[in-house]
């Protein structure tokens, strides 16, 4: 049984903001299926009483003094922007046509 369908891959691509082509959907569905079947081995471990590890270090609430320090200038921050207008990042419209 396959772990993942073509439709699910299309859904994942939408969630991940990847405008996949039709041909890619088939290819990834096949490959992700193989990978998922392999990694699903982790479920063989009976681990009801095992606490999860999200991070290798037991550090918590690391603080440093709240001191002002120089950040980027406006020119530096905008230097790599794909589009700039009036000394600001210019972005595409954020609302769908229907909402306007």
């Amino acid at each position: 049984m396959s772990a993942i369908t073509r439709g699910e891959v299309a859904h994942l691509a939408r969630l991940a903001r990847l405008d996949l082509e039709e041909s890619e959907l088939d290819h990834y569905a096949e490959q992700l299926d193989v990978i998922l079947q392999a990694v699903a081995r982790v479920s063989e471990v009976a681990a009801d009483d095992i606490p999860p590890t999200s991070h290798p270090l037991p550090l918590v609430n690391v603080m440093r003094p709240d001191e002002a320090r120089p950040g980027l200038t406006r020119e530096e921050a905008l230097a790599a922007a794909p589009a700039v207008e009036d000394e600001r990042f210019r972005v595409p419209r954020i609302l769908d046509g229907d909402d306007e």
Partner: protein
Amino acid sequence: MSSDIERDLIHQSAATLAQAIAEGETSSREVTQAHLDRIAAVDDRVHAFLHVDAEGALAAADSVDARRAAGEELGPLAGVPLALKDVLAMRGIPTTCGSRILEGWRPPYDSTVVERLRAADVIILGKTNMDEFAMGSSTEHSAYGPTHNPWDLERIPGGSGGGSAAAVAAFEAPLAIGTDTGGSIRQPAAVTGTVGVKPTYGGVSRYGLVALASSLDQAGPCARTVMDAALLHAAIAGHDPRDSTSIPDTVPDVVAAAAQADVRGMRIGLVRELSGEGYQPGVEQRFREAVGILENLGAEVVEVSCPSFDYALGAYYLILPSECSSNLARFDGMRYGLRAGDDGDRSVEQVMSITREAGFGAEVKRRIMLGTYALSSGYYDAYYGQAQKVRTLIRRDFDSAFAQCDVLISPTAPTTAFRLGEKVDDPLAMYLNDVATIPVNLAGNCAMSLPVGLAPEDSLPVGLQIMAPAMADDRLYRVGSAVEAALQDRWGHLLIEEAPSL
């Protein structure tokens, strides 16, 4: 010594070069120029570099020479050239992470690693090739074409840090910086006959290191000798308040440990699960010989079992994609990097999706979708949640093994360098290259790979992996330099000197 150095600057160790510069036998400019010349001569075939900053490197070299002439005391690597993996931000120098989505991006700041290299007066020659965002074991997933293994140009140099390892192996630089999320320093070291160390997680600052999987990523040294790796390790390690996961404790004295080179009385554990099926005969043969060397040197070698390691690959390929799908969400085409499809009509969501489709390569898209899947409701507990539990079990396996042993050993990679193209569209086959290196990343402790010979069947380098507990990085160097010295005695030279001259 003096005439040797003049004749052959590129074949010297970093330690030798630094000393020769300090004693005025040569200058940092001469050393830097020799390496730039070497890059110009061989890098069209090796393709270790994505960007060479000749002007910046020579200016930095001149500064070292001027300050030396003025009588200033400089550090132990002052004036020595280095190749920097293209995943570390360096102010004003292109930083692509091997991806089209960052093509032409010039960071407005230095990573902490770069700051420390500059403070140590190390000369940064340029940026090295890598699998896109460090996802891969061959550098074939670089958007700018693969790097070629200097031992055989038709073969992979390992990955993701294949550029850094190949630069060192091809004598384009005596030192390089790599990053290791699942083996990306150690596996390239193994297949190129060089030395690579993944320090303890939190040992080297991640500030300015473009994140793949934040709980696994760690920068570290690549070199041709254990002592050179130690000198570089000491230069870049230590607490950084700008990285909240940076360890505040004092860094172990790795340079003293490399000089000690003594394993007498040490207990060394051979990990049963990291051998057998899938391991190439020549890899196992050279590994067994290394075990014999350690015993001859006075170490006690015992077999240990780490049963949960069998599940490490599965846990890793759930945890890494999960973290990467989240980390790479920042590449949205709004503030920096590529933007595609912005025709004035499309919405920001459409532009983002078109940009990411155009800017990311196949492996990055695969892992982003895998991570998105593993984190989605309904699958979270079965995949990501379960993987986190396996991570706990792996830590426990290490804990009990290190209760009996000072260090653990295994082959670094199950095979020698495979042919370019052989596994590029077979993700699972590619992932299996990391089977022996991944457990250390999941547990956060440290490990080294060093060359222990050529596999008889293909005459390609084999790596020995040494693993030590967290913040016991010095043990890697103590054991590694002892093995290196014994092999050098046997062969009369370092393994890398057997590499083709290109």
